[in-house]
C-alpha cells in the first residue's frame, strides 16, 4: 500500500491550509466557550476567537507550557467529562508532579489513525509481524504503537520491555518483521543476540525498526542498519500530544507532521519569532483535533527545523528534521544559538578526535568565549607539534562552520575528560549575569 489515507496524505497544500484554518477556528471558539483555562488565557492575552481570521493569526494566541500541564494536575485543564474519557496515560515527572493525559474515544482514534498513516509510510502493513518493545502501561509508547500496528492489519507481538532473550526467541519463532522500541534497547537486543549466537541479519526476518522516545543520531542509524541489515525509522511524539504519532516515510528524510492533526511552528526560543524555513528553532505545536486535553501553541522544548518542500514519497505534509536537542540545553554565544548536539555532530565527523568533549563558556569583557575541549584519538597522535596544531585548527574550522560562531579548541589526552552515564553534562557556563 502506498498510503493509508491517500486523499488526506497527498492533498495539495492549499487544501490542507484551508482545512487547518477551519479546524483552528473551530478549536479556538470551542475552547473560548468551554475551557476555563483557555478562556482566561485568551482574555489575559487580549485575543478573541473573532480575531482569528487567517492561519497566521495563530500567532496571536498565548503559548502553553509544560508547567501549565503540571499545574493542571490531575485534570484541571481537561475539556471532557470523566464519563467521556476512555483512557489515561501519565508521564513521569523528572521534576515535581507528573502530567496526566486523558483521551476520549475520538482522541484515541485520531492518535491511532496518525500512527496507521505513519507506519504505512515506512512500508509496513498487513502481513507484517510487529514486535512492540516499548513499555506498556502509563507510558504511551507501548499501547500507542500496539493499536497503530493493529489498525494497519499487522500482527502485533506485545512483548513490552525486558526479558531480552525471550524477545529474541519470539522474534525468530514468530518471524517478526518490524520492531518498535528505543534505539538503545534495540542496540541492547543486538548485543544480547550476539551473545546467544543469533545474527539479527541472518537468523531473523527483521527488516524495519521504528525507533524513538530518546535522542539518537544519524551515526546510530547507520550503525544499526549496517549491523542488522534493516531500515531504521525515526518516530516522534510526546505524551502531551497524545504519544508517539509521527514517523519518517521510506525516504528517511524528515518526519511527516500530519497537517490535519497538528500545526507546527518553529520559533526562535529567545525572541518567540518564527525562524526562516529550514533553520533550527523550538517546535511549538497546536493539536487541531483533541477533545480531552486540548493543546494550543505548546512549547515542546524540542529543537528542530521544518521542511515544507514536496517529499519524493508524494505526501504533501511538512516534515521536521531529527531533533537537534532541547531548548534547556541551548547556549547563546555572542547572540547565536548553539546546541551541544551540534558540537557533538560536528566532532563525530572528524576521525582525529573522539566523541568525548566538554564545552566551557566564559566572558571576556563584553564578549562570550566558547572553548571546546576534545580528546585526541590515539591513532592521530603525532610527535610533530605542527600536525597537532593542524588538527586543532581543523577542529576549530569545522566547529565554526557548523555553529556560525568561532570557538577555541583545546586538544585533551584520551580518557582525561569526564564520562557520563545517562544524561551528559558537557557544558560549564562560567558567565555571570
Amino acid at each position: 500500500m502506498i498510503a493509508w489515507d491517500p486523499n488526506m496524505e497527498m492533498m495539495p497544500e492549499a487544501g490542507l491550509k484551508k482545512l487547518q484554518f477551519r479546524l483552528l477556528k473551530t478549536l479556538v471558539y470551542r475552547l473560548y466557550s468551554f475551557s476555563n483555562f483557555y478562556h482566561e488565557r485568551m482574555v489575559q492575552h487580549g485575543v478573541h476567537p473573532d480575531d482569528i481570521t487567517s492561519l497566521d493569526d495563530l500567532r496571536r494566541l498565548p503559548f502553553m507550557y509544560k508547567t501549565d500541564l503540571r499545574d493542571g494536575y490531575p485534570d484541571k485543564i481537561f475539556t471532557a467529562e470523566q464519563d467521556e474519557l476512555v483512557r489515561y496515560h501519565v508521564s513521569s515527572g523528572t521534576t515535581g508532579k507528573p502530567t496526566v493525559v486523558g483521551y476520549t474515544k475520538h482522541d484515541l482514534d485520531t492518535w491511532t489513525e496518525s500512527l496507521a498513516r505513519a507506519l504505512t509510510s515506512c512500508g509496513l502493513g498487513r502481513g507484517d509481524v510487529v514486535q512492540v518493545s516499548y513499555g506498556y502501561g502509563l507510558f504511551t509508547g507501548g499501547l500507542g504503537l500496539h493499536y497503530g500496528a493493529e489498525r494497519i492489519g499487522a500482527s502485533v507481538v506485545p512483548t513490552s520491555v525486558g526479558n531480552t532473550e525471550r524477545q529474541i526467541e519470539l522474534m525468530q519463532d514468530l518471524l517478526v518483521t518490524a520492531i518498535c522500541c528505543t534505539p538503545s534497547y534495540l542496540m541492547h537486543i543486538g548485543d544480547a543476540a550476539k551473545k546467544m549466537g543469533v545474527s539479527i541479519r541472518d537468523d531473523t526476518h527483521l527488516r524495519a525498526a521504528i525507533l524513538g522516545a530518546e535522542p539518537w543520531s544519524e551515526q546510530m542509524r547507520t550503525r544499526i542498519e549496517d549491523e542488522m541489515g534493516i531500515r531504521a525509522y525515526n518516530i516522534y511524539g510526546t505524551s502531551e500530544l497524545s504519544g508517539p504519532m509521527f514517523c519518517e516515510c521510506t525516504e528517511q528524510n524528515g518526519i511527516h507532521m500530519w497537517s490535519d492533526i497538528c500545526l507546527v511552528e518553529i520559533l526562535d526560543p529567545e525572541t518567540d519569532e518564527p525562524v526562516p524555513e529550514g533553520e533550527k528553532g523550538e517546535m511549538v505545536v497546536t493539536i487541531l483535533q483533541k477533545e480531552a486535553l486540548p493543546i494550543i501553541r505548546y512549547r515542546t522544548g524540542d529543537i528542530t527545523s521544518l521542511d515544507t518542500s514536496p517529499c519524493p514519497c508524494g505526501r504533501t505534509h511538512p516534515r521536521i528534521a531529527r531533533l537537534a536537542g532541547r531548548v534547556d540545553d541551548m547556549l547563546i554565544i555572542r547572540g547565536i544559538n548553539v546546541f551541544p548536539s551540534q558540537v557533538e555532530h560536528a566532532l563525530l565527523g572528524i576521525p582525529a578526535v573522539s566523541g568525548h568533549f566538554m564545552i566551557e563558556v566564559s566572558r571576556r569583557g563584553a564578549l562570550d568565549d566558547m572553548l571546546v575541549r576534545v580528546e585526541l584519538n590515539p591513532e592521530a597522535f603525532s610527535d610533530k607539534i605542527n600536525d597537532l596544531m593542524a588538527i586543532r585548527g581543523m577542529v576549530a574550522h569545522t566547529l565554526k562552520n557548523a555553529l556560525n560562531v568561532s570557538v577555541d579548541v583545546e586538544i585533551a589526552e584520551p580518557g582525561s575528560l569526564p564520562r557520563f552515564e545517562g544524561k551528559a553534562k558537557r557544558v560549564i557556563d562560567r558567565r555571570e549575569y
Partner: protein
Amino acid sequence: MDPRAYTIKQISVFSENKPGRLMAIAGALEEESINILAFSIAEANGFGVVRALVDKPEAAYKKLNAMGFMVSFTDVIAVKMRDVPGGLFEMAKLLSDAGINIEYSYAYSGREAAVLILRVDQVENAVKSIIFRGGNLLKSADLSGSP
C-alpha cells in the same frame, strides 16, 4: 653499512600543559629505573609533546601507555658534534650540503661529545648521506642500557 643500526627510537608523549604531567612522566620512568638520556618539550597553546631518548624505550613505552599517556615511537638520528668552536657550524653545513629536511632537533651533552638529535623525514637517506660526508652518528646500541 646498515642504516637501521643508526636509527634511534625516541619516545614521544602527548601531554596537556597541566602542572604535574611532566613530573608524572619523569617519576614513572625513574620508578622503572629507566635512564633519560635526552629530553625536549615542544609546546603549543594548551598542549605539548614530550620527546625523550631513554636507555629502555620499550619499557618506557609500556609503562607510560599503562598509565594512560598517549605514547608513540619516533625514529630519530643522533649526530656527534665536535666539541670545538665552530662545531655547530660544521654540523649545520654538513646537514645543509646533504639536503636533509629537519622536522625538529634538540641537543644533549654526551659522554665524549655534544650530540644533536634530529627528526628528519627520510631517515635512511639521511643516515647514508651524513656518513658519506664524514659525519659521526651514534648507533642505537650506544644508547641501550645493556653493557
